[in-house]
């Protein structure tokens, strides 16, 4: 495939490509590359989280700031260094898909849910959805932990229908009420463990998505998974995360078919998405907006910035994104990320990150020779070096093209701080 296609594939499936990685990929064809990505994806099911994640949990108080920061930095460190970038992107996708947080969800529970996500991220969606419905951190975040027959909690049911499975607008308020009733009784005890409290459960008859019965939580999940719209919602979400902000209905329906035929195995769906024509179609290039995490991790990985995890976490946070603390309905998507103010903050964070490594000889920022090495050329300077750096870092021509006489660091700095660097 050509250089721009390879660059695009890496932009979407990893955190952007270094010149060397892009060039390596040009030797492959898109279908082969997609298959390798899926075959080698590693979502880190066996990661080692901070020890306290499996320690004692104290419910009913605000999560400790230090623990949340530690989790955030821990993941950013992994995002910066993990071998399987696609695996991390996939975990980020599910982290956003199942976004649910509240101040009183203990950090340890968030960490355990994160491990569960990693175990299923490239596994089977049935298992993943089943785990989500039973997960203490989600139950607490969405007010389900103390829901009873007398006072059911619609928040969890609403999230389950609108975001986790069916998709917005695919159900009636009565379906939410029915699901909320069915989920009553699945509580979280004082040690942070999920438990079933029979007397809190509403065992009455419910009408859910046109089916009547004495439904419990497992039935709700079963009915949702039997509904075609669930597969379509997941296919469409993946499309939005990896292809373009406007899913093609025909393609989504085809992908949902692949997903169902594979009995909700995630890898065949990923393979179908990554090998679709749309993935290499030039029209979609640059149609997505980088999240703050994608932005800072991308800059660090592509430019060889050996940044501390806590510094990356700070940079992403200053642009509005703390992992493990998503807003109630998830982070913004697409252009909703960007206002004049957040653009300022993103650039400020990027600028400082770059300056901290301006004289590091391992980065391309130091001098002409360092930049030539980064570009994989024995010696390269002037307009050609500038143009190649542009092709690596940006998907379109920049608003402010750095003059060719700029020093290496200033060329890269100008390109990274160009508004066009924000799109992927």
């Amino acid at each position, binding site marked *: 495939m050509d250089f721009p296609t390879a660059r695009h594939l890496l932009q979407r499936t990893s955190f952007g490509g270094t010149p060397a990685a892009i060039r390596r990929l040009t030797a492959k064809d898109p279908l082969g590359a997609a298959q390798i990505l899926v075959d080698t994806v590693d979502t880190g099911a066996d990661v080692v989280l901070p020890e306290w994640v499996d320690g004692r949990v104290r419910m009913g108080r605000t999560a400790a700031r230090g623990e949340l920061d530690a989790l955030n930095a821990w993941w950013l460190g992994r995002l910066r260094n993990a071998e399987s970038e696609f695996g991390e992107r996939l975990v980020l996708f599910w982290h956003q898909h199942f976004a649910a947080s509240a101040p009183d969800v203990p950090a340890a529970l968030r960490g355990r849910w994160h491990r569960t996500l990693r175990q299923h991220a490239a596994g089977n969606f049935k298992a993943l959805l089943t785990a989500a419905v039973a997960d203490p951190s989600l139950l607490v975040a969405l007010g389900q932990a103390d829901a009873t027959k007398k006072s059911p909690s619609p928040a969890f049911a609403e999230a389950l229908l609108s975001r986790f499975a069916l998709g917005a607008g695919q159900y009636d308020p009565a379906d939410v009420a029915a699901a909320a009733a069915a989920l009553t009784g699945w509580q979280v005890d004082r040690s942070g463990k999920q438990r079933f409290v029979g007397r809190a459960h509403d065992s009455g008859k419910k009408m859910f998505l046109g089916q009547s019965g004495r439904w419990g939580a497992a039935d709700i999940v079963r009915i949702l998974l039997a509904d075609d719209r669930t597969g379509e919602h997941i296919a469409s979400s993946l499309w939005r995360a990896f292809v373009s*902000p406007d899913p093609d209905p025909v393609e989504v329906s085809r992908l949902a078919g692949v997903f169902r035929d594979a009995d909700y195995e995630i890898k065949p769906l990923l393979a179908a998405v990554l090998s679709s024509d749309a993935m290499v179609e030039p*029209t979609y290039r*640059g*149609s*997505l*907006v980088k999240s703050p995490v994608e932005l800072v991790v991308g800059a660090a990985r592509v430019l060889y910035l050996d*940044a501390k995890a*806590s*510094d990356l976490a*700070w*940079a992403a946070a200053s642009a509005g994104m703390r992992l493990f603390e998503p807003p109630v309905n998830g982070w913004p998507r*697409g*252009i909703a990320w*960007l*206002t*004049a*103010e957040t*653009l*300022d903050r993103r650039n*400020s*964070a990027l*600028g*400082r*990150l770059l*300056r*901290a490594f*301006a*004289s590091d000889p391992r980065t391309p920022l130091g001098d002409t020779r360092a930049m030539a090495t980064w570009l994989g050329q024995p010696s390269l300077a002037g307009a050609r070096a500038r143009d190649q750096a542009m092709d690596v870092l940006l998907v*379109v021509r920049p*608003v*402010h093209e750095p003059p060719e006489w*700029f020093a290496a660091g*200033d060329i890269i*700095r*100008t390109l990274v*701080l160009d*508004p*066009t660097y*924000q*799109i992927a």
Partner: protein
Amino acid sequence: MDRRRFLQLLSATPLALWAAPAWTQEEGAAADPWTRTVILVHLAGGNDALNTVIPFADPAYLAARKRVSLPVKKLHHLDDNYGLHPAMAPVAYAWDTKELAIVHGVGFPGGPFGHYAACESLDTGSPTPGPTTRGWISEALSNVPAPRGFALAADLGMAGPGPDLGAPLALRIPGDGGPKLARPASKNRALDHVVGLHAERRAQARELWVRAQDTGDLGTRFPASSIGEQFALAARLLSSGAPVAVMRLEQTGYDTHRNQLSRHADLLGDLGAAIGSFRSVLLKSNRWRNVLVVVVSEFGRTLAENAGGGTEDGTAGVALVLGGSVRGGMYGTPPLLGELNDGQIVHTVDFRSLYGTIATDFWGVQKHAFSAFPGLGFL
């Protein structure tokens, strides 16, 4: 800032800022940082402090500087020990009228640093800045919420990548305000959106610039050099009531490794003339008391001269502070030229003392990141 707020900035809400800037507030009233402007002048490259404020009576200076030194007779004598560079007549005048504070031996612990690292320290107020270190202006003003539409800093200097002072507005000379933003709308919403936001910011800077151009005849000539134009623009921005706390100016060329004497004289001559014109404009419009001109450099130069008629990158430097509210005089302790550390002058005043003094005594901010550093008392 969303589009609505941006339009408000340009029209309705900040009218108070534009129409009646509080420059004219009564003397002695509690300082409000948002009515007082710092003109921060960076002499880029490392200014030779010893040939700016010359210790002409110090035998160590006389012994070390055989070629790269100035005839004592020509200096503007400040006292029995120090003289100002002969090219800086207007600054010498401010000394006589007690509007010039000279801060000796300004630097950071450690060093020598390279230009880049030293500029980082200068911008952040941290000897070891990391990626999370904010600009010193952000730190100094972090406890004082800025009024709506206010920017912490505007960069009037170079068009290249400049330092981050907290919330820079990229104002540029000579009013390039018309950046090529007229990209044809593409089919790509993400691209159009982000380029549009960028255009908004540029338009905001341009609006400030346009208003500055409308301020009529300044009645004083500024040098035709870059630093002269920057000072003229600063004067116009102040007249227009631009909502900016710090205007950063830059004069390049101070990295005088060779043939220092004539180049240095040209630079300081330009700088001095620009400061003189600026002072006279602000005195006339009664704003001189609410403005502080702070001239710094990332470091000084070595006491020793080199074979090329220049000096090498140094450590401690000198800061010049001018304004209608300044108590003229010498501050800090002059470094001992006879006691060098590995050939370098040892700093006696931490940059953070300078920044802290500005925050406390000029902006009236009592608690800030530099509170722990002793104030210098020039205000």
